[in-house]
């Protein structure tokens, strides 16, 4: 497969995963506007911006911004707009989805008609939408629908896409993005620098995260109904059976890389394999015994970033003189 087409599929997977991730977080955040205290809302916005390493439109640092009771709805509107429809924000849902479609356009000949139609229909639905269109009624439904669209796309892919390298790179992009975004979020949430809500409880932050990741049921099965921060974090990192855990994403990533043919830049390909192996071993063997979980999450995040760099070097941006030739 053409390296650039593979890269488009890889980034299509990444942008769609990013779209889904943001929709899940924003859906929970918007739902919280109904009845949660301002302190929890503030924490939720902080969490979203900080893990994206983005600055809110007010220009305040993510750690510093705060709401008053009077302003919370107005501010929520501005922040939701920025994270949902703002084209100049590269992390807005609109930008991510539009980018996934641009990549799909370039690799349209490598995906099935069903996949393209599914993606294009969703794009047409959100292309001209504005926050004022969705804000009046039930804004959270917008995010639910878009998550469903992304899932439909991957469902279409699973039943209609030929299992060639294109499939592997699409899935690889999805799992790498999954890993990077979630590890960043968990790292932010585990750092001491985050101000606790005034009531001192961390229940909301973990409950909302479990809800966003559809992991509440699994948590109850494993730990009961009381949400404990350590247990929640443990499950979201290391439970290999939970589709939204880091371990699940790491395992799938490792499988995908092993499925690929030898990379044109074999050295970088080997490095990618080593990084994915190291990630697996870190979570499987070192995570349970570590005392500094925040530090280990940062380490996992760094490894995930380097893994992406090695994949790009090995299969997409390799030097011609390093590559083998086929006649």
């Amino acid at each position, binding site marked *: *497969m*053409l*390296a*650039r*087409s*593979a890269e488009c599929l890889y980034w299509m997977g990444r942008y769609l995963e990013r779209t889904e991730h943001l929709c899940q977080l924003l859906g929970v955040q918007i739902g919280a506007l109904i009845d949660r205290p301002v302190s929890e809302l503030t924490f939720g916005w902080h969490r979203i911006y900080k893990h994206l390493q983005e600055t809110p439109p007010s220009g305040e640092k993510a750690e510093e911004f705060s709401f008053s009771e009077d302003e919370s709805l107005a501010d929520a509107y501005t922040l939701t707009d920025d994270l949902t429809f703002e084209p100049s924000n590269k992390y807005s849902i609109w930008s991510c989805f539009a980018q996934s479609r*641009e990549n799909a*356009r*370039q690799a*349209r*000949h490598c995906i099935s*008609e069903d996949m*393209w*139609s599914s993606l*294009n*229909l969703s794009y*047409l639905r959100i292309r001209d939408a504005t926050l004022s269109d969705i804000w009046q009624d039930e804004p959270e439904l917008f995010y639910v629908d878009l998550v469903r669209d992304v899932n439909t796309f991957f469902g279409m892919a699973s039943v209609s896409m030929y299992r060639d*390298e294109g499939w592997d*790179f699409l899935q690889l992009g999805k799992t790498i993005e999954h890993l990077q975004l979630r590890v960043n979020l968990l790292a932010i949430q585990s750092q001491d620098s985050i101000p606790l809500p005034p009531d001192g409880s961390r229940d909301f932050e973990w409950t909302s995260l479990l809800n966003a990741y559809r992991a509440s049921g699994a948590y109850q099965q494993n730990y009961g109904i009381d949400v404990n921060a350590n247990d929640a974090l443990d499950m979201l990192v290391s439970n290999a059976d939970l589709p939204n855990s880091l371990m699940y994403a790491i395992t799938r990533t490792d499988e995908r890389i092993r499925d*690929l*043919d*030898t*990379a*044109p830049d074999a050295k970088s390909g080997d490095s990618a394999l080593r990084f994915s192996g190291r990630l697996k071993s870190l979570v499987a063997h070192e995570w349970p015994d570590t005392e500094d979980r925040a530090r280990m999450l940062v380490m996992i995040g760094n490894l995930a970033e380097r893994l992406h760099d090695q994949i790009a070097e090995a*299969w*997409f941006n*390799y030097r*011609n003189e390093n*590559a*083998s*030739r*086929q*006649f």
Partner: protein
Amino acid sequence: MPPERMATIQERVTRSFTNEGISFTLYDEDEATERIIPIDAIPRIVPQSEWLTIETGLKQRVSALNRFLHDVYHDARIIKDGVIPVDIIKSCPQYRLEMHRVTVPNDVYVGICGSDIVRTNDGYRVLEDNLRVPSGVSYMIANRRAVKSNMPRIFRQNEVMEVEHYGRNLFETLRELTWTQTSEPSIALLTPGLFNAAFYEHVFLAHEIGAALVEGQDLVVNDGFVYMRTTTGLKKVDVIYRRVDDDFIDPLAFRRDSVLGVPGLLHAFKLGNVALVNAPGTGVADDKSVYVYVPEMIRYYLSEEPILQNVDTYLCRRPEDLEYTLDNLDKLVVKTVGGSGGYGMLIGPQATQEERSKYAQEIRDDPANFIAQPLMQLSRSPCWIEGALRPRCVDLRPFILQGAETRIVSGAFCRVALPEGSYVVNSSQGGGGKDVWVVRD
């Protein structure tokens, strides 16, 4: 058919184009906009007997054009024999000295041709031959799929000739135009990229023929061979269906500032290590000044009378034609000789006096750059517009494939001038399309 039914069909056909993103890109000064190409659901009917005339005429024409290209880049007999003035060729910017005495597979320079045909009171006439990177064939097939699926019964009843095997024909043609004629050639479709107006078509055709859709950055020339960058290394390319103009395909041979091309590509082509379809330099034969001489080429090379006639054309480089053009600007359509896409032309009868005066000055400044034609009373076809049948001007663009044999599917991209009173059918100027049904008489 009741109007409500027709409206439903039109709505469905339009929606299918929107949903599938069958688009082209429009440019204004600031930005590129992806637009869905408008489609009219009512097919244009062409009786098979008329189609056979068109098909035979086009085969004849493409054969003569290929003979001309071979001649003009080798012995130039047609010039020496005084059939075509040398200055017309020499002044044509699309004449490529780099192609002098270069051999091409099967002596085929034009493997893919899209000729624009209009129906007049005197029968079908060729308005122009697009020999460089003709586009529109994807819309022909998309129109067919959309209309067929929404009018299945009528389609079946009329025994419409198929067009959807165009991809298969294109593959065979490209295979025949490789140097080795291998059964499984490595094919690359070279596109300028996502922002090109016809990018949808490039993707569509790459899929149809199983080609890699490459940009210049994806290809590399090494030891005189062309390779594409794949996920398993560098893979040799046998044939490139290029949708990039000559000027941009190789910065070492043509425009140095091109970032769309591949350095060394022309060298690899000249060595016979890769085939380029269409070959560089074909533009000299679709220059609008040279177009005038196509009937003469047919007589000269094939010793036959042209089956399809040209539209009457005045070459402003000739003093008497210039005088006639300037005196009758209000009756003529004037175009630049190298222009395309409907840009830069003057439709005299529809222009204001001020526009005509300004254009006249441009003609006087550089007469050789202009040709003039009478405003053709294009045939009209019924279209479903705003809930009723309305007549609109149409033309036909059939696609001719020339490999070891000549192939034409029985159908064409029918372009429609959708605005009322418009004669401009180009997609870039608000034109749309409709399916063409070639049916038994």
